């Protein structure tokens, strides 16, 4: 069952996130340079790290799909990219708010992390349109996996290249703040990292379970109405799951 353990996971996640927020706002000291504004980093940076790991993980799942042909890996990869895209939007928004607070502009080209993020998001934004543009489910899954692997390799490479880019003689503002974090701040930062990871995994499993249920319902309907599913299925970007008799 996909939903097994989901309740325990969700509760743990909720607890971890609540603890992180409380620690970030009440327990961690104010940064000497940036003051209270630095607290945005406890949300922004862990989200960024987890999003990137999520994209790379999706690439690894896509490799598994290409090697085994098992469509469950495709579903896992698809959902991983989906959740990471949502987190990525959060990264861009929180990063933009921080830039506005620190530099007075909603967007700065000075921060290599934000810029790399924009590129990565622009690439992954084409994932769903790509899937939607392919009718045959097997080919859709295969092409999507090729994309996920290519993009997964692109993520760390893009970060490396942008970092070396010519305009970054300026201080790397996020880096400078987050290296050498003193005691309490480091604790809160790692706590935030753990809770964002838990959140990602929870949402990932949650969505996979929801897809599984929807697939089972579709299969049930097919059995009960005794109509062959000849009706032209609406084109869909989502990977297909066979509902009946699906193992965990």
């Amino acid at each position, binding site marked *: 069952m996909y939903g097994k353990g989901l309740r325990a996971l969700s509760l743990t996640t909720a607890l971890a996130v609540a603890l992180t927020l409380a620690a970030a706002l009440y327990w961690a000291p104010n940064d000497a340079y940036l003051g209270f504004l630095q607290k945005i980093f406890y949300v922004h940076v862990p989200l960024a790290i987890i999003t990137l790991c999520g994209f790379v993980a999706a690439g690894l799942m896509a490799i598994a799909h*290409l090697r085994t042909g098992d469509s469950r890996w495709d579903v896992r990869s698809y959902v991983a990219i989906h959740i990471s895209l949502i987190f990525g939007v959060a990264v861009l928004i929180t990063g933009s708010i921080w830039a506005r607070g620190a530099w007075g502009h909603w967007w700065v080209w000075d921060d290599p992390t934000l810029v790399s993020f924009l*590129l*990565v998001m*622009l*690439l992954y*934004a*084409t994932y769903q*349109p*790509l899937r939607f*543009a*392919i*009718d045959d489910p097997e*080919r859709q899954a*295969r*092409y999507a*996996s*090729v*994309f996920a*692997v*290519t993009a997964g*390799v*692109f993520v760390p*490479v*893009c970060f490396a*290249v*942008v970092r*070396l*880019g*010519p305009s970054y003689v300026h201080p790397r503002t996020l880096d400078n703040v987050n290296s050498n974090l003193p005691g309490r701040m480091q604790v809160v930062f790692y706590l935030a990292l753990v809770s964002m990871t838990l959140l990602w995994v929870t949402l990932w499993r949650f969505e996979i379970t929801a897809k599984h249920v929807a697939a089972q319902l579709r299969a049930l309907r097919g059995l009960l109405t005794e109509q062959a599913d000849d009706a032209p299925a609406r084109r869909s970007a989502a990977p297909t799951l066979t509902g009946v008799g699906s193992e965990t």
Partner: protein
Amino acid sequence: MRRPRTLAVVAALLRAQLRLELRTFEALPAMCLFVVTAFVLFHFGLNVDALSGNLASGVLWVTLLLAALLAINRIYVADAEQGGFDAFLLSPAERVALLGAKTAVLLVYLAVLELIALPAFAILLLEPSLWQALPGMLGALALGDLGVAVIGALVGALAVRTQARDLLGPLISLPLLVPVLICAASWSAPLFDYPHAAGVAVRWPAILALYDALFGLIAFALFDFLVED
């Protein structure tokens, strides 16, 4: 039947595509016209008569990239629409030969394009002399074109058999080509300094070469999955 040597297959496919292009003139004239028009647009958009340094390098490379998108869209269309993929799959040749051939085709197109684009750029927009930049530019053009060709061949195969190929090709290629743009533009920028070309930082050739090699490997590893039926 003896399996044909991959290089021979690549050469044959390359010859076929170039012959097709010579007969139909689908891609190259459009690319050249696009490049010249783009320079005119930049003149009006930027409201400058002459460019040098960073700006010149940027305008040139962005224009070349966008023109390359036209080619990326076209090189697989004949195969997709007229059963070329199926014919190739039926042959005993290695699948990856198709990747090699399409990469070579893009390289040839880009080389021919640059024969037109560089003089046009020098005449219309460039402030310093093209000759000061040319020796250094050859390296940048070679590695930059290789990156565009490899990524274009991979993404073209991905996009051509979808319903929105004209949109997806550029949308997927461009983010992947940004590092190529960063490296190539940064490499060329000091060459266009006015009045004298400045030295090129050694890291740009190195990073660009690594990037090309990496995505060449990726394309090589994944291409089979794209041409399978």
